């Protein structure tokens, strides 16, 4: 199975995960500072800065895109409860 590496910069941890994993599945278990609210892509609590490797995340859905726009999210930011890794290296930190 293809793998990806997610680095949580705020706590200095890199986790090797199967492709298709969402950030939410890893960040809480590893104790990163990304915090969650609704967990359904609505509230924008889990806004996360993608430091590098944004191209290694699946593109945002229409819903995620709309929520990012509504909340005036800067570029290179995603919702951790929605963003899915597809391979390669990704470095993230709480927004």
């Amino acid at each position, binding site marked *: 199975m293809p793998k990806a590496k997610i680095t949580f910069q705020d706590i200095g941890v890199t*986790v090797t995960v199967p492709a298709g994993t969402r950030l939410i599945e890893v960040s809480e*278990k590893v104790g990163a500072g990304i*915090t969650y609210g609704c967990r359904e892509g609505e509230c924008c609590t889990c806004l996360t800065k993608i430091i590098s490797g944004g191209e290694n995340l699946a593109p945002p859905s229409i819903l995620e895109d709309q929520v990012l726009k509504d909340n005036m999210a800067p570029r290179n930011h995603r919702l951790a409860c929605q963003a899915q890794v597809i391979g390669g290296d990704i470095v993230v930190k709480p927004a």
Partner: protein
Amino acid sequence: MAAVALTDHAVEIAPGVHWVGALDPHLRSFDIILKTANGTSYNSYVVRGENGVAVIDTVKENFSDDFFRRLESVARYEEITTIVLNHLEPDHSGALPELLKRAPQARVYLSSRAQMMLKALLKPSGEKPPEYTPVTTGDEVDLGGRTLRFLHTPYLHWPDTQCTYLVEDGLLFTGDIFGCHFCDNRLFNDTVGDFRFSFEYYYAHIMRPFREYVLDAIALIDPLEINLIAPAHGPVLRHKPRDYVHRYRELATPRLFNEARSEKTLVVFYLSAYGNTRRMAEALAAGAESLGGVRVSLYDLEGGEADIFTDLVEEADGLAFGSPTINADAVKPIWDLLSSLTTVNIKGKLGAAFGSYGWSGEAVRLIEDRLRGLKLRVPVEGLRIKLVPDAGELEACWLLGEQLARHLTGQVEHREIEFSQLQAITA
């Protein structure tokens, strides 16, 4: 509330500006979390310009009749060009669907974050959302000789909140900030009964978790000339309105300098029936202090009240909770404290749990789950120790403290782990 009943008419708060809200004197608790000994009010306002009329906020739905009666006493529906929504919580937007039906030509002005809420609020009516314009700081609406200027003041106390300034008159419509649950039909701060307790109580329970946003809002409000503050609950502040802004600044700023903030701070709360969890707490504290740069404080929860500890929690960088397991759960004082923290901002603080147990030791995992639920980060796995900790186990507590100190001071060594390993640890 004063014995004399308020009339059904609007109350003029400035030339061409009227209060058209509603009084709810029999409410005894608001949103479940606030006591309201004499009820509350839902304040709505009407501003008349040469070219149009603006309605600023509405009222709770079951007070719609009062609102419309007062509104009709100062304006015709076809005159309403503008509806401003400073805050969309149902106690201020309850009459909105009906107002939109009666004044369909009006354009709604609201913050960007309020758009999704507007759509969600109008769902049951089946009506398509009205024409609306998302606004931010500096955006204006011209009513003809009168200008409404918006201030983006989010998280006071919802993401959508904003303030609206009537430029020519120096009137500030603030939504929930500077408000309070106090019902008095004399309406103005210089004519109602003593409401200061309610003003402070409201801040403590509604605004305190957002104190950084309070200070951001004050920075926007400070340069304005203010003749009157018109909040969405409680008295209209026409006498010395700026005093209320100053008081908010005081409330949002710790009054004494926190000397402990020269270092990172770790507060360790524990309870211990036989001294075992206490020994763990002491070893953890020693480990955290060994690294330098972290000031550790230990508190036995049996010796204090949750309210007092809440102040410590608000200021601390890291929090460790030690609890024995009794009947498969953490003990009640821990839950009392962990259920009292909604009045302070704890998002992103470092959290950890530990505890001694006799049979099964569920407390530590349950506390960790709660800490994550409260949006703390819990990067270091907690420690469960069966009954009496031996020297090696106390060493593990010491190392847990040292690890927490590393996280607090940014000295964590980079780790690489496999997802499967992570799942096994946390299963």
